[in-house]
């Protein structure tokens, strides 16, 4: 097995991380800005292209690996979070990024996603949530709002969507964050945090599909409303938002996260965000602040806690076994049951 050489990380620029393949998204698609954010961030991350792998499923979002000059696999629909743990377990030294859409990761791939989070395999999962099936031309997805009229729901959908942050927290995720395609800096900050996290990291990215679900996030991410509608979670800080920080989040008497006017309740009554809380309950409460995109919506890191990471725990068991039993001896193995000799 070859491993990465122990030389200094070469200096690279965005160009080095891009392939020569034409980017085939629709003009105006939010995926472009995510791609740019990633390609601009990686040169600063202290990683090499050869030790970086992007694995995706199928969907518009899932075309991502073709555009990254790293190792990459464009796999099959829903299976990126099933395939990537295998790679990470086999090669813990490799950075594994998992890319997929809301259909890919929450519909067909939902089970793999929650199990990857539970196991806490050290992979970085970017979920491009455009609340629609893009590549198959516009059916509703498990994050589409109730009543949505799409090709497959001409009379409006009748089922409630998932809140991806709630799903992840319910599945024991150790790192959960949210960002959006209109803010490169914020995206990069979240991707960096996901990368730094030792364990499975899920970043939900609000992404605009301008062809089949245009403007899905306009009410919260457009420049002019953003200040009022996005609640930027900062660890250790009271949760405030609004152009002048005039609003905030507090827990009401029943422990539910509620939006308050700071002037009414005072700064001290605000909830101080603790992403490292071992109990995910408050992070969960924050995820319920806005179910959908009509109300002020938290972005940032909901939760980031240390707990045993699966790939390193596996490697540790291997190392322990070798320490205890010595490296595998094939002859000894073959003779490990009772034997007899015929001469």
């Amino acid at each position, binding site marked *: 097995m070859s491993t990465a050489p122990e030389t200094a990380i070469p200096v690279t620029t965005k160009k080095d991380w891009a392939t020569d393949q034409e980017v085939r998204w629709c003009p105006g698609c939010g995926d472009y800005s995510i791609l740019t954010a990633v390609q601009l961030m990686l040169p600063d991350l202290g990683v090499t292209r050869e030790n970086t792998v992007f694995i995706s499923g199928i969907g518009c979002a899932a075309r991502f690996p073709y555009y990254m000059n790293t190792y990459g696999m464009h796999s099959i629909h829903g299976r990126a979070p099933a395939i990537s743990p295998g790679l990470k377990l086999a090669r813990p030294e490799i950075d594994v990024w998992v890319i997929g859409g809301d259909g890919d990761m929450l519909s067909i791939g939902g089970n793999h996603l929650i199990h990857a989070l539970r196991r806490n395999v050290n992979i970085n999962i970017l979920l491009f949530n455009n609340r629609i099936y893009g590549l198959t031309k516009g059916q509703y997805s498990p994050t589409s709002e109730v009543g949505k009229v799409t090709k497959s729901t001409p009379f409006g959908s009748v089922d409630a969507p998932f809140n991806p942050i709630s799903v992840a927290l319910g599945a024991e995720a150790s790192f959960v964050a949210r960002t959006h395609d209109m803010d490169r800096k914020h995206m990069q900050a979240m991707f960096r945090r996901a990368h730094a996290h030792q364990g499975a990291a899920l970043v939900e990215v609000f992404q605009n599909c301008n062809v089949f679900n245009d403007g899905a996030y306009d009410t919260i991410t457009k420049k002019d409303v953003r200040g009022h509608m996005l609640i930027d979670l900062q660890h250790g800080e009271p949760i405030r938002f609004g152009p002048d920080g005039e609003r905030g989040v507090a827990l009401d008497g029943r422990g539910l996260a509620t939006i308050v006017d700071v002037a009414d309740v005072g700064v001290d009554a605000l909830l101080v965000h603790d992403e490292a809380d071992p109990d995910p309950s408050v992070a969960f409460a924050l995820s319920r602040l806005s179910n959908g995109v009509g109300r002020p919506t938290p972005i940032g890191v909901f939760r980031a806690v240390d707990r045993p990471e699966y790939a390193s725990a596996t490697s540790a068991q291997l190392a322990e076994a070798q320490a205890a039993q010595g*490296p595998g001896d094939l002859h000894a193995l073959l003779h490990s049951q009772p034997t007899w000799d015929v001469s």
Partner: protein
Amino acid sequence: MTDVADSSTARELSQVIIRFAGDSGDGMQLTGDRFTNASALFGNDLATLPDFPAEIRAPAGTLAGVSAFQVQISDHDITTPGDAPNVLVAMNPAALKSDLGRLEPGGTVIVNEDTFEDRNLAKAGYDTSPLDDDTLGGYTVIRVPMTSLTMEACKDLGVKTRDAERSKNFFALGLISWMYTRPLEPTLDWIDKKFAGKELVIGANKAAFKAGHAYGETAELGEHHFMIRPAALEPGTYTNINGNTALAWGLIAAGHQAKVPLFLGSYPITPASDILHELSKHKNFGVRTLQAEDEIAAVGAALGASYGGHIGLTTTSGPGVALKGETIGLAVSLELPLVIIDIQRGGPSTGLPTKTEASDLMLAMYGRHGEAPLPVIAAYSPAQCFEAALEAVRIAITYRTPVVLLSDGYLANGSEPWRLPDVASLPTIEANYATEPNQVNEDGEPSFWPYQRDENLARPWAIPGTPGLMHRVGGIEKQDGTGNISYDPANHQHMTDIRQARIDKIAESLPPLDVAGDADADLCLLGWGSTWGAITGAVNRMRAGGQKVAQIHLTHLNPLPTELGDLLRRFDHVVVPEMNMGQLTRIIRAEYLVDAISIPKVMGQPFTAGELIERIAAATAASGGPR
């Protein structure tokens, strides 16, 4: 072998077939196993057939709860657990009811007569006791009050009644051990080890075992005292091994020989789970195992590991293979090594999960959408699973392809003596990771084409972490060479052709096909998989009876050996016994237009040699003799 019961009074037999049958809770699998191991260490050749229900412990005393273990031991080379048992040990009425029909005419029945009371009789569906009516007419019946004798033997040991009663299977084992002059030490030693720390249990089991043995000596069973000499097997060191263990070890050996770590992604399923269990133990060999959330994740993780340069493995049975098809198709498109191990069982659907069948051949061949050819190989005996595993890994790595390795429930759980190979004699496998660019681009700079092919048409295995070889792979059709997405019509035809050609090329690496028996016979028996034992038995008997018959047994089902068509065309009759409804038969007919005749069987039970001989005769007669 000092402790073998006095053999001077024993009559010599060349072989015997014993079937232990009892309740699921009676420990029949363990009893059979112990008898087998003692016989193995004694030097007999042998073959076993464990036969148990799907329930963990079905209700005591019922027909559904009967668990049986059949073993044939002999002083010569044998290949099957035998046709009809000579001896049936029936621990309760249900066991007698369910298995008496299998006993040879005039065979011996040993019953635990304590259990033949009203409640048990009723549960088994007997109106009157078969010990009292003519049910057992024509058989030699040995009635032994095993339960009470066991209790008696344990009475001073301070064991609870219930625990004492539980040792009755060791009483049976002791009795049979006396009857067939088995060494006692291996079993006594095993009891010590197995129950270490549980002194009372050790005491009870040993007491029961010795009591059973003594019962034989003292109870005038003299005419049932036999001796079966060690078999004159090839010189070497032997162990008694079942198929799943041999398969797991073969995989470990393959990783060792290829110097590539193993990664198993698996989801438990009968009868494959034991391979997961076995591989999980050997972490010091660098074997990584992941019990995944389902079969799709299991094969997915294996494929991810393969992409990372490990040997990706996945073990399962039919239902799992049915789920893995899409991901295996991706592996076909990615051209990465991957080994899918299918321990077949009775289907369709949940079918007969603990019974054997070999009906997944077509699934292995065709269970993917699109044109997605891959190599299929099959193991043919418990010990040979070791070699089959090595061969599967060789093909997967050399040709950068997923491989399906077929075994079945009978091979998985059945055991036989295995002459241990010398590690130095094992084949080596070259992983040949790519380390350098293989192209120069327009600007004169070195570049890397992930689909540039070698002489085997295989592509480079360029694993993450290798500088300069960054590339993308995916399931969309790609341009040969560059690997870039391509919807070009001609390229798709080309890639389809080359994927097939690469698989076909494997045939060039196969050893010449072996025709056993009479190469000049009119009749050829063609087989694959676990039918090998029964077919070989049938061939031996037929030839011993003066009939000419040839035998070809396939380990490679795709691609088929190059010479197979010519070989088969030489025979007037090609007869194909299969544990399915004729799947290989169809392949042979399509491939060679040879009028192969199927002998199908799906009864959850392997063929017996005798059954085969009859059915072959019928089949060839029906097809109208030589043409």
